[in-house]
Each structure stands twice: as structure tokens, then as C-alpha cells.
């Protein structure tokens, strides 16, 4: 759909695009956070969105998920124009997201955090609560079964009855990711899923992300850990100063002097590639 001026490869080389944005701009009090970001995210692949701090990555995820409105530009989920739609409508179309700082539903238990996630539930209607109790019970049973399976997979089953606010930082990361998986999204946006977690957990989370891909999801993740990006991401989008600087495999991007200058060189010199 789009062309990124200096891209070395397009998602067409992998598969069709499922999420795309074109010329997205966003400014805050005159400061341009996004300045024409344009890219396609290939379907059923893991795509990394990388770039220096302040490049506009989180702003872009906010716009793609509907949490923030862009000043101009368009976003598409599949063939549907979702530009500036409300976030819950985009979520119902199959796009889930996590947040840079984990945002658990603290007053709910770990299990309840997952049970909230199915997008449309019969039990959320007053009519059904009072007039179709059996439907509710059946639905609740199915949801609890699925939620417990996911919690077991993510190592949170034993914590199912704890309030989410009682979890550690790493556990909150896992909870947020597992909550998104519970919603069975087609596209999952992960905002720095490895940030602030220990190396062993990075290993596990990377495995979970690969599992998502096996299950047919498309993943777009903001990530600074280039070791992880290199190993699990099929496609990389580099954002700098609010614009798409380049796209392609990380190995290709390492040869791009502009990318090295804008981001990779900075990361390498800071010694955070591993």
C-alpha cells in the first residue's frame, strides 16, 4: 500500500500487509512527535519498531490503537480504514496492545484481568444477566477454562486469585501480554515487552511472542533489545524524528549508514545490543 522512501525491503517480500499507516503526523504544543510516518506491517510476522528515544514509537502505537488521534494521515487494519477510530472499536476489530509501563487492572484478580479481555460477552448485558443466566454460566465456564490454560502457559496460574496490583513488575508484564492473548487478537502491538525485566524473563517473553506468531497472530513490537529483534523479528521498521527512516531485516539495516547514525550506532556505542 505504501512506499517508504528509503526502505530496503517491503513487506511484500514476506506477505500481504495487515496493518499500515501513511503520512501520520502528530504534534504536541508545536513539537512534532510524528512527521509523516509511513509503513506496512506484514501479516502473520513479527515486526519490530525501533528507533531512538523520542522518535515517536509509542505515539505511533497510541495512534494505531486509537488511544490518540493523529493530526493527519491514515491508518488501515486489513482493508478497513481505522483512522482515528475510538480504541474500543479498533480493539473489537482484532487489534490489541500492551503499554510501555504495565497497566494492570489492579483491583481485579489475575484471573479476572483475563476474563475481562474477551471483546464481546453476553454477560455484559443487563438483559442477559437476568433473563439468560444459563448462557452466562456457559460462557463464563468457557472463558475461565481458556483463561486458566493461558495463565498456566504464562506461569501465572498459581497467582490467579491474587489482586493484579500485588504482582511484581515482571509478572505484570506477563499478565498484560496474557490478557492480550486472551482476547485472541489478529494484530498485537507490544510496547517494549522486554523493558525492565530480567534476562531469563526476556527469554520466556520472546518464546511467547514466537508462539503468538505460530498461532497466526501478527505482532508489532517496540523493542530496544536488538539481540531479541535480530532473532525473533521477521521485519524491522526504523523510526527517527517522527518519520520512517528505513524498513527491512535488521541484518540489512545494519548496513544502512543513516540507520547506524540515527540509532544503531548509538545503541552499539551504549553497549545495549545484547
Amino acid at each position, binding site marked *: 500500500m505504501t512506499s517508504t522512501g528509503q526502505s530496503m525491503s517491503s513487506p511484500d517480500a514476506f506477505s500481504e500487509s495487515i496493518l499500515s499507516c501513511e503520512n501520520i503526523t502528530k504534534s504536541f504544543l508545536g513539537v512534532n512527535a510524528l512527521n509523516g510516518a509511513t509503513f506496512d506491517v506484514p501479516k502473520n510476522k513479527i515486526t519490530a519498531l525501533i528507533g531512538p528515544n523520542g522518535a515517536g514509537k509509542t505515539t505511533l502505537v497510541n495512534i494505531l490503537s486509537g488511544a490518540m488521534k493523529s493530526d493527519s494521515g491514515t491508518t488501515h487494519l486489513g482493508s478497513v480504514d481505522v483512522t482515528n477510530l475510538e480504541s474500543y472499536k479498533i480493539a473489537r476489530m482484532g487489534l490489541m496492545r500492551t503499554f510501555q509501563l504495565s*497497566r494492570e487492572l489492579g483491583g481485579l484478580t489475575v484471573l*479476572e484481568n483475563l476474563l475481562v479481555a474477551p471483546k464481546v460477552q453476553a454477560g455484559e448485558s443487563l438483559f442477559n*444477566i437476568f433473563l439468560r443466566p444459563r448462557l452466562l454460566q456457559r460462557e*463464563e465456564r468457557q472463558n*475461565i477454562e481458556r483463561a486458566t490454560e493461558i495463565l498456566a502457559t504464562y506461569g501465572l496460574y498459581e497467582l490467579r486469585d491474587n489482586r493484579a496490583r500485588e504482582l511484581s513488575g515482571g509478572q505484570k508484564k506477563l499478565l498484560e501480554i496474557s490478557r492480550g492473548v486472551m482476547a485472541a487478537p489478529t494484530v498485537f502491538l507490544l510496547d517494549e515487552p522486554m523493558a525492565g525485566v530480567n*534476562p531469563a524473563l526476556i527469554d520466556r517473553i520472546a*518464546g511467547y511472542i514466537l508462539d503468538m506468531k505460530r498461532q497466526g497472530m501478527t505482532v508489532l513490537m517496540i523493542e530496544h533489545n536488538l539481540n531479541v529483534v*535480530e*532473532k525473533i523479528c521477521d521485519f524491522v521498521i526504523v523510526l527517527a524524528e517522527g518519520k520512517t527512516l528505513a524498513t527491512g531485516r535488521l541484518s540489512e539495516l545494519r548496513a544502512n549508514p543513516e540507520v547506524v547514525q540515527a540509532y544503531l550506532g548509538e545503541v552499539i556505542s551504549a553497549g545495549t545490543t545484547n
Partner: protein
Amino acid sequence: MSAFWYYVFTLVFFLFDYFILAMGLNIQYGETGILNFAYIGFVAIGAYMTGVAGMPNAGTSGQHYILGLNLPFPINLIIGGLSASALAFLVALITLRRLRTDYLAMVLISLSLVLYDISNNFIPLFNGADGLYNVPEPFASALKLTTNSFVPFFAGVAGVVALILWFFMSRITRSPLGRTLRAIRDDPTVASALGKGVFRYQLTSMLVGSFYAGVGGGLLIQFGGSFNPTAWLPGETFVIFAVIIVGGVGNNVGMLVGALVVETLLIHLPAFLPAIPGHPGLIEYIDTMVIGVVLMIMLWFRPQGIVPERVRRSKFLLPDFAPSGGGAVIAPTGPAIPTEEAAGAGPPFFIEEKDV
């Protein structure tokens, strides 16, 4: 009936009535996080509308008010509840889409003041500052109830209504709808990102909570036989907030405990104490101070209230549910270690245990 029992049943009535009012505010604030500082306004609308739906045409009563439908109890009470919900619908349409937390609270407290001024000054509506009086006592003529016997009778009616409304509220708060409301309370942005139309659920909460406010107000006017603006000063909202904070935000049983402690023991019981000689009204002032002190003590030492919000454990959610494998045997399995094919070409990258 002795004066003692008259007082006791009066206290019982206020216990049940404020239980209903607290449940309504609890679903809005305790479950959904809507800081409804205009709550007493919805109580007042319910009271007035119950009154004018049950009273005869204004021409025969010497008062000025709308409707005068002469409808029997509990139809007029339901009309009172629905009227409060209708007002909530309008208010929610205007405010909830654009305003959150403190800004919403400021607008709502302003609304409360506006409603108060309108009812106080616009006489054709609800008889202005004089308010409604001579409101018919339900079943009084049919059951030949005297002033004395009406009090215990209507305390019982309020108890039945409270029980019915508690049943409905429990079903709502235990359902997936209640869970979604609490998710919105905890973080509306996350709830929206999970596909929940926050406005729709907030609107539902406002409608249900305001219906409870209207019914609670309707019972008040039927019990006392009159209702005027001095009965619902905008500050009264904070008494109901005190009920739910002391009782336990987010817990329906806590609402009953809060109503007992704040409304019955701290507000109405002292009103029946003999005045301190030479200091008429002093007890009421002390009473107000005591409520403030109790509120501060609760917020400082036990912010979760006397009966805290229940942790809805998995057994509570579905009592007979046991996950495949018997529950406890389901252990964390961790991720499937990616194969080389799945991970793409290249050497394994996963960090070894010794590097941790």
C-alpha cells in the same frame, strides 16, 4: 406503640433507605469510578416525581406541582426511579463522553446546585421552597393504618424493596458486566483497549445507580409525607459518600454496614437524644463533627472500609469449576522453546541459565 418503638422503626426505615441509596452510589463510584457529586439531585428527582405521580391533581391540593397522576404505590415509586434514570441519561450524554474524574465531579456538583435552585425557586414544578406535602401514605387507608402503625409498616416495605434491589445489584456486580465496570474504574484506557465501549458501560452504571437513587428518594417522601429543598441540600451527597466509604467501597454488604453506622447511628440516633440544657442544637453540630472525624479516621486507617471489596476468587466466580487436570496440578509450563525454523536462521539466542 411507644415512642421508643416509633423511633426504632424510624431508624430501621432510614437504615434500609440509605442502604438503597448507598448501593446506587456504589455502582457508580465504587464499581465504575464515576465521581457523582450530584447524587442527591437524583434522589430529589426521584422523591419529587414519586410524590407528584402519587398525589392527586394539584388543583385540589392547594399546592403547585406538575402531573398529579394519583397513581398507587409502587407504580409511583417506579416512576420516581425511572425519572431519576432519565435525568441520568441526559446528564451522562452531556458529561461522560468528554469529562473524567475531577472535571466531571466539578460539573456534577454544579448540576446539583442548579437542580436545587430550580426546585427551590420555580414554584410550578414542585411547589418551590415549600416543597410537596400531604403526600399520600401508601396502603394507609386500605389497611387502616394510623400515624403510629404506618411507621413500622413502611419500614417493612422499605426492607422488602431494599432486599429486592440488593438481589438485583448482587446479580449485576457478580456478573461479567460488574467485572467490566470495575475494569473501567481501575483504568478506563485499558478497558477501552480491550474493546470495552467505556461510555456505554458508564451510562449503564449511571442509569442503574440513579434508579436506586430515585427509588430511595421515593421511599423518603412516602415515609415522611413531605419533601422540600431543605431535605436535600447538595452537601447531602457527601453523607452518602461517607456511608459507602465507611461501609466499604465496592461491597454491597458494606453498604448496609455503612448505612447502619453513618446514617442510623451517627445521623438519626443523636437526633432523638434530649438536647443539652442551655445549648439547643449543639448535639447536631457535634454530630456533624463526629461524622467528619469518623470519615477521616476511616480514610487514614482503613480506606477499604469496614467490609472491604471482596476478592472474587476463582471458586467464587464459578463454584463447581475445576480446570482440566484438577486445578492444582496445572503448573506453569513456560513457553515452547522455539525451534530454529520458527526462530529463523541463526544460532540459538536464548540466554543460558548461567548468564542470569
